């Protein structure tokens, strides 16, 4: 594989940029693979990468219905954080933070990781107490957390509305300074390029149409480009999980919902951190291009549309304007939607299933992007070793029937209520 560097850039500049190799190939599917990963998004590509790198399994196919980077990995708001209270989540996402920090070097691809810090605003004394508790839990797990008072927040984010005449005055905030953002497309491309160089076949425009299972064991899959034999299949298809589950006669504790995001026109640097509203659901950061990147609530009903409705956008941006009054003067550049696999307790599932050789990775709700490296790392372990890694041992599929929920936000079990 060609190494990307400052020298290679100069060299190729002098030869008219004609010497660059393709980042990943376009192979035809083979008859048989050791492992097939369904879903060529961030999680699927990361899983293939860690299977090859950590477990030396390289006879792998990543099957993607669309194209690399066209799904949720290219539709999110690029936020990376590990500010969770429960051990199952905190330790898992903090492993992810370690992987994020070294990712540009590991992948030889600039993913533009920017640890600019996330600030969760608090709007009452009770919320400050809850954040103090969460911050303490985070620090016990080795995650950095700082409780900010109103004056400290004002210093860091002066553009917030600190006037007296607001419905939800800012009392303070919980900050994770090591959190941040990354270039989401680069994450997909970087993993795809490295996985390809280690022998993984990335097969785009190939839809899975069925499974071949006998005696409770995975034998292979049927696709729009022919049948493929394999003993191990990993599902990484986010919002499409329930569609594949139906082919497998499985009913899962997830529902597919629509989440929208939007960006404003680009403006000069004004916001140095990721900031979230504490009295609703709105988050905002400023991209390197200067656009304000915003998101918030689900549209609220089951949907596979990848295309949102205006009432939710209006609701979300009303919260945004309550936080940052200057947003009302900006033009909207783009809005878009993606389909989320909402689990019933808001936490993900990475586990084996009752079918031998079928592994499940789903339930990422609002936060799949930040989990990309940790998800790939632990899912690769689960597939290669046929047992869960200690970091994903809480993300069990059967935790709903056994009552071991991970209700991080106490939002209840109905996705449409939370």
């Amino acid at each position, binding site marked *: 594989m060609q190494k990307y560097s400052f020298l290679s850039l100069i060299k190729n500049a002098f030869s008219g940029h004609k010497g660059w190799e393709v980042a990943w190939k376009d192979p035809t599917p083979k008859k048989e693979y050791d492992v097939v990963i369904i879903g060529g998004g961030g999680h699927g590509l990361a899983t293939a990468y860690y299977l090859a790198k950590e477990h030396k399994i390289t006879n792998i196919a990543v099957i993607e219905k669309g194209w690399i980077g066209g799904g949720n990995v290219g539709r999110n708001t690029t936020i990376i954080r590990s500010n969770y209270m429960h051990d199952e989540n905190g330790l898992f996402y903090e492993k992810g933070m370690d992987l994020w920090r070294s990712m540009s070097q590991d992948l030889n691809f600039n993913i533009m990781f920017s640890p600019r810090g996330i600030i969760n605003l608090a709007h009452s004394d009770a919320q400050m107490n809850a954040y103090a508790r969460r911050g303490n839990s985070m620090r016990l797990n080795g995650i950095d957390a700082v409780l900010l008072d109103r004056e400290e927040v004002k210093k860091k984010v002066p553009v917030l509305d600190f006037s007296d005449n607001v419905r939800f005055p800012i009392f303070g905030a919980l900050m994770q300074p090591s959190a941040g953002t990354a270039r989401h497309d680069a994450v997909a491309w970087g993993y795809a390029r490295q996985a390809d160089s280690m022998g993984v076949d990335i097969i785009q425009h190939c839809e899975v149409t069925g499974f071949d299972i006998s005696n409770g064991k995975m034998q292979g899959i049927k696709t729009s480009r022919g049948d493929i034999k394999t003993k191990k299949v990993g599902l990484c298809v986010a919002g*499409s999980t*329930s*569609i594949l589950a*139906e082919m497998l006669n499985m*009913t*899962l*504790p*997830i*529902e*597919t919902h629509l989440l929208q995001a939007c960006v404003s026109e680009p403006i000069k640097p004004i916001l140095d951190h990721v900031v979230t509203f504490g009295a609703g659901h709105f988050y905002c950061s400023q991209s390197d291009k200067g656009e304000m990147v915003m998101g918030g609530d689900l549209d*609220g*009903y*089951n*949907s*596979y*549309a990848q295309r949102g*409705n*205006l*009432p939710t956008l209006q609701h979300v941006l009303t919260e945004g304007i309550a936080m940052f009054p200057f947003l009302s003067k900006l033009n909207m550049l783009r809005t878009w939607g993606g389909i989320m696999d909402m689990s*019933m307790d808001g936490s993900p599932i990475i586990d084996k299933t009752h079918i031998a050789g079928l592994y499940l990775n789903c339930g990422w709700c609002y936060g799949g992007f930040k989990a990309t490296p940790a998800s790939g790392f632990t899912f690769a372990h689960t597939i290669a070793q046929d047992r869960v890694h200690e970091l994903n041992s809480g993300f069990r599929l059967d935790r*709903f*029937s*056994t009552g071991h929920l991970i209700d991080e936000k106490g939002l209840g*079990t*109905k996705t*449409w209520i939370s």
Partner: protein
Amino acid sequence: MLYIKCPHCGLRSQNEFAYGGDASVKRPELNKEISDQEWDEFVYLRKSPRGKHLELWHHVSGCRQWIKVLRDTSTHEIFNTYKSEEKVG
């Protein structure tokens, strides 16, 4: 914007309604032994189909009645709406 025809009030905008999830889910019978698996199915497990989906909506800013809506989850087309006790054939 979705427009939902409430069987009691007529065509209204989505803003007047709250979503109530899959309408085909049945609560286990009262006064009998209920297994963990039955509770699991009722509380957590959902088919979440792509395509036709029968679902509950609450006309919360209108007549406050729960209604059933047959809607396509990929196109958002609404085929029909029913009163809560009405049989869906």
